[in-house]
């Protein structure tokens, strides 16, 4: 009951702000809508008993990635004239949206998901929490985790090199 109400309200906020992201002319307005979408998505993660994922969604996405994005948008300081010229046609956007909905909905209208069990399994104590997820990562996914640190290091160095004025 409460899950249903929360699901529909969070889903509405999520999709509404998602639509705002792709329709606003000013990228700063898109970025603000994006932060709202990330907040709503963190709520949905909470409904799915993925507590750590919800917290990291807010910390990393809304707190880290979007701040970087807003920072760069403000750094480049685009003029309203340039933004107007980059406005797409809304008919194109609508056609794209309908086409993507058709493709993304394929498993639904083909009925491929009818075999999914409707009852949710009972979860162990602390499912999706820090201790439980940490155990899963460090017990069975240690190598990809370490590779991730290499990737982040390479990304930081790459970003520095790319944004230098003279190489």
């Amino acid at each position, binding site marked *: *009951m409460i*899950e*249903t109400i929360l*699901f529909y309200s969070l889903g509405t906020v999520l*999709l509404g702000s*998602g639509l705002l*992201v*792709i329709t*606003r002319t000013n*990228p700063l307005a*898109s970025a603000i809508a*994006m932060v709202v*979408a990330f907040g709503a998505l963190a709520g*949905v993660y909470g409904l*799915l*008993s*993925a507590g*750590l*994922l919800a917290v*990291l969604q807010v910390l*990393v*996405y809304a707190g880290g*990635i979007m701040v970087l994005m807003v920072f*760069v*948008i403000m750094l*480049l300081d685009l003029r309203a004239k*340039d933004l107007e010229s*980059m406005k*797409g046609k809304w008919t194109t*956007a609508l056609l*794209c*949206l309908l086409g*993507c909905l058709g*493709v*993304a909905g394929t*498993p639904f209208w083909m009925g491929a*998901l009818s075999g*999914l*069990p*409707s009852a*949710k*399994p009972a*979860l162990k104590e602390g*499912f*999706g929490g820090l201790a*439980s*997820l940490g155990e*899963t990562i460090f017990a069975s*996914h240690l190598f990809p*985790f370490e590779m*991730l640190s290499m*990737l*982040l290091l*390479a*990304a*930081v160095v790459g970003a*520095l090199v*790319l*944004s230098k*004025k003279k190489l």
Partner: protein
Amino acid sequence: MEYLAPVTTTHYLALSALLFAVGTAGVLSRRNLFVSLMSLELMLNAVNLTLAVFSRANGDETGQVLALFVVAVAAAEACVGLAIVIALYRLKESVDLDLFRSLKG
């Protein structure tokens, strides 16, 4: 209260598919580089939602671990992507995707 039927796995998957469609439409229809990047993030988030949904439906945490990895890769992608945006802006004084056609065959 038949209008408030309990949400199933399919409901969550439908939400994720809708979000992915919105993100794809943004990437395809917008010419502003920033909005395209943000729509890309929306698509990544839709995939993350699917991972979390199946993790819940199977009672297995591996899906959430993969979602966390995706978040880290998205952070790296945003960092390099924005550096490329700055480099392109220095080159053309604009973030209009239609101007960056020199790689087009």
